[in-house]
């Protein structure tokens, strides 16, 4: 795709075309499917990455839950690039792709992302109409059936944390959840990439309770954060969501965990507030490079702990 760049922010049309190109150029490693469509009718493309082999386990990773968090979709694109470029060269990546599949959803909230490019750079939610309200959109990361709308979410359609009219009321979250439900037997880890605050979180966010494998998740998060910091010394805070930052019901990592995916993490990428949601493009590369280290660490851990 002529206009696509991994070190720039790409609009939706460019990303959509890129998904087709990357799959066409790497047919033995990447395939593209559509898992649903958005409220405004856009196809939700999913990339499956990995060498074809029987009985493979998988890792699901999504980006772009919140529209204005542009560094998030940039990372998903970066990850795909690194995978195809380093397969056969980097031993860890080669092993990962030989033995695991990665499902990569480059943008969940596509309508919102388009809106940030065309109307309001600071838009966060989906773009669905809320009956009986002039306010638009639902917070997709409070729309899943994980303590839905009980804690840290709003029932007001005008709120930035509106949980929606029902769990999975948004077509985007329903499509994501349906796909994961349909592939539960193979998906061993769930990663969701957000931005702001440099955090590596794991369940739970909808309760202050700790998950049964808390110790394991905490040690993985600690080691992954250390890996991440090894490149540019970027400091991440890690821990269970509710205790580490604040409670938030309906989030995708909690939901995935309760579905039985025991390795479930939320990344909040750079930065801690200097730029906020407006991270300069010159920081895409270092941000993605360091994040890749952490993702590879987690993937390798999952591979070694069947």
């Amino acid at each position, binding site marked *: 795709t002529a206009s696509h760049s991994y070190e720039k922010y790409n609009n939706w049309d460019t990303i959509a075309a890129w998904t087709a190109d990357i799959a066409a150029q790497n047919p033995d490693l990447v395939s593209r499917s559509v898992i649903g469509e958005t409220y405004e009718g856009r196809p939700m493309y999913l990339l499956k990455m990995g060498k074809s082999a029987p009985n493979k386990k998988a890792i699901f990773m999504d980006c772009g839950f919140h529209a204005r968090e542009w560094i998030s979709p940039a990372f998903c694109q970066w990850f795909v690039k690194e995978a195809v470029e380093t397969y056969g060269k980097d031993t860890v990546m080669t092993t990962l792709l030989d033995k695991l599949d990665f499902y990569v959803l480059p943008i969940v909230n596509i309508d919102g992302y388009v809106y940030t490019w065309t109307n309001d750079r600071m838009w966060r939610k989906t773009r669905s109409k809320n009956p009986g309200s002039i306010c638009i959109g639902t*917070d997709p990361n409070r729309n899943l059936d994980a303590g839905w709308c009980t804690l840290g979410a*709003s029932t007001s359609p005008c709120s930035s*944390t509106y949980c929606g009219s029902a769990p999975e009321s948004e077509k985007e979250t329903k499509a994501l959840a349906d796909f994961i439900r349909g592939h539960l037997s193979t998906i061993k880890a769930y990663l969701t990439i957000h931005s702001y605050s440099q955090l590596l979180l794991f369940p739970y966010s909808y309760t202050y309770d700790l998950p049964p494998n808390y110790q394991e998740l905490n040690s993985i998060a600690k080691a992954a954060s250390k890996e991440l910091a090894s490149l540019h010394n970027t400091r991440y805070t890690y821990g269970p969501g509710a205790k580490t930052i604040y409670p938030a019901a309906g989030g995708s990592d909690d939901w995935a965990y309760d579905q039985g995916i025991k390795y479930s993490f939320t990344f909040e990428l750079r930065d801690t507030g200097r730029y906020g949601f407006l991270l300069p493009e010159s920081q895409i590369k270092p941000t993605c490079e360091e994040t890749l280290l952490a993702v590879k660490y987690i993937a390798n851990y999952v591979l070694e702990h069947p």
Partner: protein
Amino acid sequence: LQDHSFDGQKVFRVLPQNDEQVEILNFLASIMEVDFWQPDSVTLVRPNMQVDFRIEAEKSFEVEDLLKESGMEYQVLIDNLQAAMDAQFDSKAR
């Protein structure tokens, strides 16, 4: 092209240290549009929590005065959001 102009909009970082200062942020959010960057909503704000929020240009002086009056610890993270928005496209990659 964006419909919105973000000229003069500011992003503040505040550190409310007690319930009274949290209440001031609630009051702010009740009388004007406050876009919370961190945490996601004013309802999640607690004492000693770092809070980042965006304010429209016309209200920024009023907000700053209120923060000063209340004695709340604060800093201006982004002085002009439009400038930050323009600066995000700083890549020399292509």
